[in-house]
C-alpha cells in the first residue's frame, strides 16, 4: 500500500478513527474478501463512504456486540478477511467470551478495532472511555494487541494485521488532531518495538497517544538540561518484544512505561513480567498510567494533565528520576 506524505498530514489532522475508516477505501483494493462488520457504528469510524461505496463489504449487525463477534467469526470461517469495529469497551469487554472462544480458543481470524480508547472520551464518562481492556484480553491466547502511536501507525497496524494469520485487537487512542510521531512511511512489524530516540539512563517504553507527549517531554529535557533519554515505541503489547526489553534492561538504570491504561494489566505489567525473569536485573521499573482507579470525567487535555500523563508532567517526572 503506497503511503504519501500528504496522506500522513491529512490523517494526522482528522484523527485515528477517521483515518481508519478512510484507509479502508484503499486497503479494500488489495483485500478483495474484506468484510467490515460493525455494531451501529459508521461515521464514528470514518466508515460512511465505505459503507455507501462498498455495501457488499459492510455488515451492520446493530448494537449487539456478542453477535458482532459471532457473525464476524462465521464470515471468517467461510474465507472473508474480517474487521470488526465499535467503541473499545463494547468491542472488547461486552463480547469478551466470544473473543475468548471464537478467536482465542477456536483461532478464527478477526481484526478488531477499538475506537476512542484510553482517555479521549472522558467527557462521556468511563462507560465509554476505556482503561482496562488491554488487561482483559491479554490473558486470552492467540490474539495480538496493538496500540498505534499515531494515525499513520493506525493504518500500518490494520494493514499488517490483515497480512498475517492471527486475530488482532487494535486500540485507537488520541483525539483530533492526532499529532504525528512519524512524518514519513516506515517499516512496521507486529511485535517489533521501534526505538525513536537514543539516549542514556532512562528508557521510556510507551504506546499509543502517549508516545508523542513522551517525545515532547524528552525534547524539553534535552533543550533545558542537555540530557538525552531513550524513547521506545512499543506499539505491540502482545506479543511483547521481549528481546528488546531484555536489551533495555542491560543498558538503562530506569525503565519508565507510559500508557493510557491501568498500570495493572497493560503495557507496564507486560514489561514487568519480562523484567521479573531477568537474572540480576538492575534496572528500576516505574509504571505510569492510570493507577487502578476510574478518574473523574472530563476533557481529554484535562484528564491527561490530571493523571500526569501529558508532556509537561512527564518532563517533571523524568527530571525527578534523574534527580535534576
Amino acid at each position, binding site marked *: 500500500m503506497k503511503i504519501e506524505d500528504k496522506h500522513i*498530514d*491529512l490523517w494526522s*489532522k*482528522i484523527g485515528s478513527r*477517521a483515518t481508519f*475508516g*478512510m484507509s479502508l*477505501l484503499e486497503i479494500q483494493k488489495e483485500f478483495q474478501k474484506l468484510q467490515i462488520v460493525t455494531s451501529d457504528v459508521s*461515521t464514528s469510524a*470514518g466508515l*460512511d*463512504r465505505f459503507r*455507501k461505496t462498498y455495501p457488499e463489504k459492510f455488515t451492520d449487525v446493530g448494537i449487539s456486540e456478542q453477535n458482532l463477534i459471532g457473525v464476524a467469526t462465521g464470515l471468517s470461517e467461510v474465507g472473508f478477511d474480517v474487521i470488526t469495529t465499535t467503541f473499545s469497551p463494547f468491542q472488547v469487554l461486552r463480547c469478551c467470551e466470544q473473543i475468548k472462544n471464537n478467536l482465542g480458543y477456536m483461532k478464527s481470524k478477526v481484526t478488531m478495532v477499538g475506537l476512542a480508547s484510553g482517555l479521549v472520551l472522558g467527557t462521556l464518562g468511563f462507560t465509554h472511555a476505556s482503561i482496562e481492556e488491554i488487561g482483559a484480553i491479554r490473558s486470552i491466547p492467540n490474539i495480538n494487541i496493538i496500540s498505534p502511536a499515531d494515525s499513520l501507525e493506525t493504518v500500518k497496524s490494520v494493514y499488517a494485521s490483515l497480512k498475517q494469520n492471527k486475530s488482532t485487537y487494535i486500540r485507537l487512542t488520541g483525539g483530533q488532531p492526532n499529532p504525528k510521531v512519524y512524518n514519513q512511511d516506515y517499516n512496521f512489524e507486529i511485535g517489533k518495538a521501534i526505538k525513536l530516540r537514543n539516549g542514556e539512563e532512562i528508557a521510556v517504553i510507551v504506546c499509543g497517544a502517549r508516545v508523542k507527549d513522551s517525545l515532547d517531554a524528552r525534547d524539553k529535557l534535552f533543550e533545558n538540561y542537555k540530557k538525552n533519554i531513550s524513547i521506545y515505541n512499543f506499539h505491540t503489547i502482545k506479543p511483547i518484544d521481549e528481546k528488546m526489553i531484555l536489551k533495555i534492561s542491560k543498558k538503562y538504570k530506569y525503565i519508565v512505561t507510559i500508557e493510557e491504561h491501568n498500570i495493572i494489566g497493560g503495557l507496564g505489567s507486560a514489561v514487568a513480567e519480562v523484567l521479573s525473569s531477568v537474572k540480576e536485573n538492575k534496572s528500576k521499573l516505574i509504571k505510569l498510567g492510570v493507577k487502578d482507579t476510574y478518574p473523574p470525567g472530563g476533557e481529554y487535555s484535562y484528564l491527561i494533565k490530571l493523571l500526569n500523563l501529558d508532556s509537561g508532567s512527564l518532563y517533571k517526572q523524568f527530571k525527578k528520576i534523574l534527580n535534576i
Partner: protein
Amino acid sequence: MDKKYKKVFIDALSLNGNQKVENIKYNEIDEWDSIGHMTLVSEIESAFNVTFDTDDIVNFSSYKEGKKILTKLGVKF
C-alpha cells in the same frame, strides 16, 4: 484567489467538472460527504496557511460559506 480556491475544491473532492463548483453544498453531492469534508478542510488549510477552528469546520456548509470563513481568517479574495 478565486481560481486557487476553486482548484482546491476540485482536487480535494476529486470533482470532474460536471457540477458548477460555486453552487455545491456539503452532503448534497456524493463527493462532499464526511470524508470529503475532512479532506477539503485539510487541503484548504494547507493551501491558504490557515487553521479552521471547530465552529469553522461545522459552519463550512458550502463553497460560498467557505469563502466567507477564509475571508474571516484573513484571506483576500
